[in-house]
């Protein structure tokens, strides 16, 4: 079982290269070269976000290295989703800076610009296009020139089709490709959304609670997928499922009340007195 997943992932990654090249050849909105010469690809510095006086993020500082797989945990309301909102441009920070590489100031970019620059996002609540087929969902997510007039005449290239097929094999939705996405189960929607993330070929993947609603087996597969993606991509995973986090984590950040409480390996974090206090022993130690 594991072996087959490995193979699939391998193909996905190779396919991705191909797609990227093809996209470049097609004169598309290629992400500006992300300057990661200093190590980190994402810089979140002193970010504060408040909603009517309530600080959802409080002077949060966080760096994600290029190619890193980072897990972010924290109790409900810690600000994890808000942090992703800030990175993807959905929420503007009151103060602080968010940079993609050395040069791109994300606080000055719109959502679609950020996405085009190479930051992909999976929502906490799976969101797909319910009235499109699984295939079309992937087609729309596919990295391409996404301007209006171009899409009036755009057609999928053979290469892109192949790429979608590959992803469909990876996420196990191949048999359901013609089904309306709205008819998928919760877990299947999660997979579809992950697939949509893959065809976008982003540099950074922000994944909010990817395994909610998945079986144990599927969780394993997801973990596998995410670890393989790391390296070529930077992956930021928010999860409540500690077991899952432990199985994939290299570096864990604990958020609490909008700022970083602790950072380190899973073991270090779990032994941190403050973290234990916050979780009240809730984590499976």
């Amino acid at each position: 079982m594991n072996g087959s997943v490995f193979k699939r992932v391998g193909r996905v990654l190779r396919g991705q290269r191909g797609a990227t090249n093809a996209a470049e050849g097609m004169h598309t909105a290629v992400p500006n070269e992300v300057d990661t010469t200093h190590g980190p690809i994402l810089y979140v510095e002193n970010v504060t976000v408040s909603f009517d006086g309530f600080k959802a993020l409080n002077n949060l500082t966080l760096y994600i290295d290029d190619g890193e797989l980072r897990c972010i945990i924290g109790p409900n309301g810690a600000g994890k989703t808000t942090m992703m909102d800030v990175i993807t441009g959905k929420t503007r920070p009151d103060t602080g800076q968010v940079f993609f590489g050395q040069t791109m100031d994300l606080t000055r970019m719109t959502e679609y610009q950020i996405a085009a620059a190479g930051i992909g996002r999976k929502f906490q609540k799976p969101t797909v296009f319910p009235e499109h087929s699984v295939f079309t969902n992937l087609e729309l997510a596919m990295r391409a020139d996404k301007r209006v007039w171009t899409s009036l005449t755009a057609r999928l290239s053979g290469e892109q089709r192949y790429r979608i097929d590959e992803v469909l094999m990876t996420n196990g939705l191949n048999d359901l490709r013609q089904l309306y996405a709205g008819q998928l189960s919760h877990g299947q929607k999660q997979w579809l959304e992950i697939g949509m993330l893959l065809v976008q070929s982003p540099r950074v993947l922000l994944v909010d609670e990817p395994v909610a609603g998945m079986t144990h087996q599927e969780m394993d597969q997801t973990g596998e997928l995410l670890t393989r993606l790391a390296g070529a991509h930077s992956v930021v995973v928010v999860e409540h499922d500690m077991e899952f986090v432990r199985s994939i984590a290299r570096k864990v950040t604990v958020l609490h009340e909008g700022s970083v409480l602790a950072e380190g390996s899973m073991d270090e974090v779990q032994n941190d007195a403050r973290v234990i206090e916050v979780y009240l022993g809730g984590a499976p130690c």
Partner: protein
Amino acid sequence: MNEQNLFKRLLADDRGGQALLASLAVIAVALPILNLVVPASSALHVSTYTVALFGKYLSYALLALALDLVWGYCGILSLGHAAFFALGGYAIGMYLMRQIGDRGVYGNPNLPDFMVFLNWKELPWYWHGFEHFWFAALMVMLAPALLAYLFGWFAFRSRVTGVYLSIITQALTYALMLAFFRNEMGFGGNNGLTDFKDILGYSLQSNATRIGLFLASVLALALGYLAARYVVCSKLGRVVVAVRDAEDRARFIGYKTESYKLWIFVFSAVLAGIAGALYVPQVGIINPGEFSPLNSIELVIWVAVGGRGTLYGAIAGAILVNYAKTYFTGALPDVWLFALGALFVLVTLFLPRGIVGLLRRRRMGKTAPTNLVNSL
């Protein structure tokens, strides 16, 4: 790509569209023959009045098609689409006014009657150019497009959606109605533009011109349908549906969703403008009443009755409801508004997908329609 092929591919998967175009072809041939060739004494003779009535229905159908694009496909329930229709109508109306020349009541070769009546001495600047048909035809599309662009640019950029958007579109057409009622606007105030004489040199009273206008409506509707079909089958069309269902998702995979909405809104406004331009010469008048919010919302019910998000459903709905309206207002005038009111309630409660949805439900399987990526 070969024209013929494109045409075939657009309709390959579209039974409703095929039926629509076939019926359009039939009436395009049949009505003129029944009107011009069959003698008036025959039972089969179709009066010019009926031909014009059909022409009117067809222009309404084009308007419904336009609304279906934004409502059915993009989820924007515009309660102001009559404004675009009316603007197109006014544009062609201005041309027709200029064609009257010195045959007006006051016989002024330069000024339309209502301006003479208001003691105006010269033509306002925005009336210049409308003596040329090509210019008016351009304005038929440009004026609605410009309004839609300005309005949409503001509205979509600031992410006004749902009922809020509906209400401000209604306010828009309401404001325009009030504005056009003013004499100072220079569009004939209350009475609007009327007493047209001829179009492109042909008398509007003659049978042949009427048939010509009718055929133009048939052609416009057929082309409009194909264009709309092309748009909804393109990737743009799929993005638009995606925006309708999950705008955030679309944004986060890199689509500038407001541009898509704006594009489809402007395109729809242009279609509505053309519909208005076909309507006005056939009914012979355009006045500010066309801007009334009631018109816009009545139009919504045509689309709802037919079945939104299907294009041909909107067309069928427009023709059906308007036929019913003609019938009722003639036979039982008091009943019409009761019927219309009931229609609104019944359709939303029991026929959310319209007549088309009702017919389709039986056949609908679980799978999405075949992907059209490669057929285009």
